[in-house]
Each structure stands twice: as structure tokens, then as C-alpha cells.
């Protein structure tokens, strides 16, 4: 890209892609903003004109709003915690030379390839079913009363399913990070008199900090939008209504596009607050 000519040629060739991406982002955003200021009830009269900030006020004053924000944060937070802790441990385990390493690694990554809807249905019907589920059988085997997972422990169940899906991602990223650790550093620490646990805290964890940051940032983006897992299991009942799910209900179940769009704008704001917060805490790990 040295000459003026090649630079402008490059710009020209990149233009369609940039244009497409911009349109892809700006049109839905503009439409969401547009609808959020209108009273739009598709089945009850259609577009009924501007209502100012009415939708925003109604969405936030609804009794489901704050609980849904709380649920969203709980889901994101717990899944992050579980996938990071188990991910580090699994990565450490997979880094050990074992027989059949290749196959084991593929098995560990497998859940990531299963569609969210499918994996949620598998969990719901095969594991968590209170009558025929594997967990129910396990509980009965030990003489305990089977847990009605999705109604009695609904939020932990969702967290469990989503964690299962995202654990492979965290493990994979952390495993590659662990593999890049210079073994001489660990040996030096061993010579310096650091036992296993302190080697872990003083050498391995700091080495992983950048990978952990990436896992946190990427997972947060996707976890804020968790939908399918809730849709096919609890349908938003039993306190599993996240902000994303609430917006879905407002738009499609109550057929109120305006109200849902206002919720969408709140979701954007929440995501940005969270992103700002995360960049403050962990973003510094990405420098140098």
C-alpha cells in the first residue's frame, strides 16, 4: 500500500464491504430508535403516531423491568464465573500429556458446536425432566426426591445450560494461552521454592490474564443476548426473564413494537455500561 494509487484503489475495493456493514448496523438501529418513539401495535390499529417518551417511561416503570435486568446480570455474571474457573482447571488438565489427547480435546470442544436450541432441549428433556430425566433417576437412586429443575431451580438451570455451552470456548482460549507459557518459568519458580499452588497463583494466573480478559469480553457480548435457552425451557417463567427475553415478549407476545423498541434502546445502554465497566477493570490487560 505504498503509492497513492494503490491506496485509493484499496479504498475503492473496500467500499462495498464498509457500506454493507454500515447499512447492516445503521438501518436496524435507526428503525429501533424510530419505532421507540411511536405507538405501533401491528394487530391493534398499526402505526398510531408519535408518543414521545411514553414507551420509555412505560418500559422502565413495568414491574418486570428491574427483575429482568437483575436476571440478565446474574446469568452473565454466574456463567462468566463458572466458565472461567472450570475453564482454567480444564485447560490445566488438558495441557497434561495424556493418552488420546486429540480425541479428548475434540470431545471437550464438542458442546460449542451444538445449537443453543438443541442443547437446551437436550438438557431439558434428557437431564432435567423431573420424571424421566437422568438427574431424576440419579436423585431417586440415592433415595432423594427428584428436583423439578426448571421450575424450582429455574435460574441455576439456565446458568448450568449456558455454562455448558460456553465452557468449551473458555477452555480452548485458556488452553492455547497455557501452552504458550515458557516451561522454564515454571521450573525457575520451582527452583525458587514455590510449591504447586503458589506457582499457579504467581506464574500461571498472571500469564493467563490476557486470555481471561478476552474470554470475559467476548462471552459478555454473547451472554447478554442469551435467548434460545430460555425460550425452549422456561419460556421466561419462574424468574428467568432476561432483558432480551422481556423485549421479545413486549414485541411478539404483546404485539407492541414501540414498547419493545424502547426496551431495545435500554438494552443497548446496559450493554454499553457493562462494556465501559469491563474495559475499566480488565481492558488494561490488553495493552502491551
Amino acid at each position: 500500500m505504498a503509492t497513492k494509487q494503490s491506496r485509493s484503489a484499496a479504498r475503492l475495493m473496500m467500499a462495498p464491504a464498509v457500506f454493507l456493514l454500515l447499512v447492516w448496523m445503521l438501518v436496524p438501529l435507526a428503525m429501533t430508535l424510530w419505532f421507540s418513539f411511536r405507538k405501533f401495535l401491528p394487530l391493534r390499529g398499526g402505526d398510531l403516531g408519535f408518543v414521545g417518551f411514553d414507551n420509555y417511561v412505560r418500559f422502565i416503570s413495568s414491574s418486570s423491568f428491574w427483575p429482568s435486568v437483575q436476571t440478565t446480570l446474574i446469568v452473565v455474571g454466574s456463567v462468566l464465573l463458572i466458565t472461567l474457573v472450570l475453564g482454567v482447571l480444564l485447560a490445566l488438565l488438558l495441557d497434561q500429556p495424556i493418552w488420546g489427547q486429540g480425541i479428548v480435546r475434540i470431545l471437550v470442544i464438542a458442546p460449542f458446536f451444538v445449537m443453543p436450541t438443541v442443547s437446551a432441549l437436550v438438557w431439558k428433556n434428557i437431564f432435567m425432566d423431573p420424571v424421566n430425566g437422568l438427574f431424576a433417576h440419579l436423585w431417586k437412586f440415592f433415595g432423594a426426591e427428584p428436583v423439578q429443575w426448571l421450575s424450582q431451580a429455574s435460574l441455576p438451570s439456565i446458568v448450568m445450560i449456558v455454562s455448558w455451552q460456553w465452557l468449551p470456548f473458555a477452555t480452548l482460549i485458556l488452553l492455547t494461552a497455557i501452552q504458550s507459557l515458557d516451561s522454564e518459568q515454571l521450573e525457575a519458580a520451582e527452583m525458587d521454592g514455590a510449591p504447586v499452588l503458589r506457582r499457579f497463583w504467581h506464574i500461571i494466573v498472571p500469564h493467563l490474564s490476557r486470555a481471561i480478559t478476552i474470554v470475559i469480553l467476548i462471552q459478555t457480548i454473547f451472554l447478554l443476548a442469551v435467548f434460545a435457552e430460555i425460550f425452549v425451557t422456561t419460556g421466561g417463567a419462574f424468574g428467568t426473564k432476561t432483558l432480551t427475553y422481556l423485549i421479545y415478549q413486549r414485541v411478539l407476545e404483546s404485539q407492541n413494537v414501540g414498547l419493545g423498541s424502547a426496551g431495545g434502546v435500554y438494552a443497548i445502554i446496559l450493554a454499553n455500561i457493562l462494556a465501559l465497566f469491563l474495559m475499566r477493570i480488565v481492558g488494561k490487560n490488553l495493552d502491551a
Partner: protein
Amino acid sequence: MGRITLQQVAKSFGTTEVIPPLDLEVNDGEFVVFVGPSGCGKSTLLRLIAGLEDVSGGTILIDGEDVSNTPPAKRGLAMVFQSYALYPHMSVRKNIAFPLKMAGVAKADIKKKVENAAQVLNLTEYLDRRPGQLSGGQRQRVAIGRSIVREPEAFLFDEPLSNLDAALRGNMRLEISELHQSLKTTMVYVTHDQVEAMTMADKIVVLQKGVIEQVGSPLDLYRNPANLFVAGFIGSPAMNFASGATAQEFDATTIGFRPEHLKLSPEGGDWTGTVGVSEHLGSDTFVHVDIEGVGKVTARADGDISLGYGDTVFLTPDRARVHRFDVHGLALR
């Protein structure tokens, strides 16, 4: 005290025997260099002493105490690695303090010891930097600092200078020698560079394929190499060898003569040869000569000698300093 004794120590990886059983004595305060070509097992031997590898047989004694199954941290040894193995996320201060912190030393003592070590190694102004912001030589000094604060029984160095450029390597060689003079602690040093071995060691251990070829002081090895391998490995430029009729004259299968023990003359001598490339170093000139019936040899001449490519010269070996070897490559004395 830091006397290290190896008795019949052996190491195998699976079915491959890397080090056949060997005996070795490292006396207290000695600077011992393990030298040999790459893959000769010298680093493995050092790691066995450090405890980073388990012995497959034999015993390792430190000050008469069997440490063969003692974990590395409890052997009282400190090691400097080839890659320095500094902790990249810690400042220089924290790097040097790490072993003390692990040993549970009081904070005030740590501070004092770290600052002392930094002073000795000229690191005082770099204490708050990260290893990534230091040059190769400074990192090397931090690695040494980290090992001296523990006041170990012995230091182990695993090719510590091989990542440095030539000038810096020369400086660090001196610094490590001086450190040894001031600390008087046992040091075991691994290198593939015979110059490092010759200049620093009290005692050189020449290894090949896991076997000790010879142990001795630098000059001892230079003057009386036990076999062809040691003769060819020690000394720079390497010793010249000749066999056949030339060697028969000396009642040997092979004879060896060092470049510095060859006399060059334009008028006359024992052998006649054709001059090839001359390497002018200023102080010396290394002349490569092709001698009929002997082969290609290197001779050391004065710095101001002027010989052209293809000139004819006469060479005479210093007969008292010709090394003679038998059929098995062992020295005849």
C-alpha cells in the same frame, strides 16, 4: 559449603539412554564447566543435579547428603536458565524478591537483600522496570540477582550467555567470573562454547554422548588431551590432525598439532604446502595451508605476515608439542 558428588548417576528417557552411569566430584567453591557439542547430555546432567529431572539410577550427594529424591527447592541450589525465565508480569524488584518471598523472609529483610543484590549487579536504577523493558544483558543480571539473594550452596548456569551478542558475552563472562571470586560459591556452568569453558573454569568436564571424556583444569586439557575428541574440541582454532605416513613417523595412528605450534617459513621446513585463505585478525593471522600428504591444516602466524593465495610455504611442527593417538583415538604418552 557446596560439594556435589555424583555416584553412578544415569538417565534414560524411555528406552533411550541419555547418560550412562557416571561419577563426578564438584568440590566446594569450584567453578566447574560442563562443555560438549549440543545433544551431549550436559544440560540434562545439570537438570539432574538441580532436581528438575529424576535420576534413572545412582545417587546425587550435596555435602555428603543424598538428595536424589529431594525436590529442587530443598536442594539449596539456584539456577540461571538459558531463556533467563524471568517472570514477565513482575518488576525487577519482585523478580529478585520472589525466592525470598516464597521462603517467607520478613519484608524488611527482603528489601535489604534485594537492594544489596541490585547494587552488586548494577541494577539499582532498573528495580521498578519490567523484564520486557530491559536489554539482554540486564535480564541476565536480573536472573543472576534472583539466584544470589537465596545464598545457595551452589549456582547452576544453563548456557546463560548463548542469547547475548559477542561483545556482551565477553563482558558477562568477566562479570560471572568476578562474581565467583567474590562469592566463593560453587558454580556449575553448562556451555557448548569452549572459549567460555577455557576462560572461566577451574575444572572442565568434557562430555560427548553423555559420557565424560575428560576432567581437568583448562590448561591440563589443552596440554594433555586424553583422546581425539577432547583434542579437537578444546582450543581455538581447532587442532590439526594427520594420519597415515605422517603419523607413522611419530609411531602413532593419528597425530595432532595445534595451529600455534606450527612454524611457518618461506625458506624451508619439514612440510611444503600451498597457502589457501588467510584470516587476518590483527594480532594473529590464521593461515589455511594445504600440505601434500598431510592434508589441510591451519597455522597461526604473526599479525603482519603477508602471504598470497596460492603461495608456497614451509611448515615445521614443534615436535615436543605433537600429540600422538593410538588406533582407538586415545592419547599415547
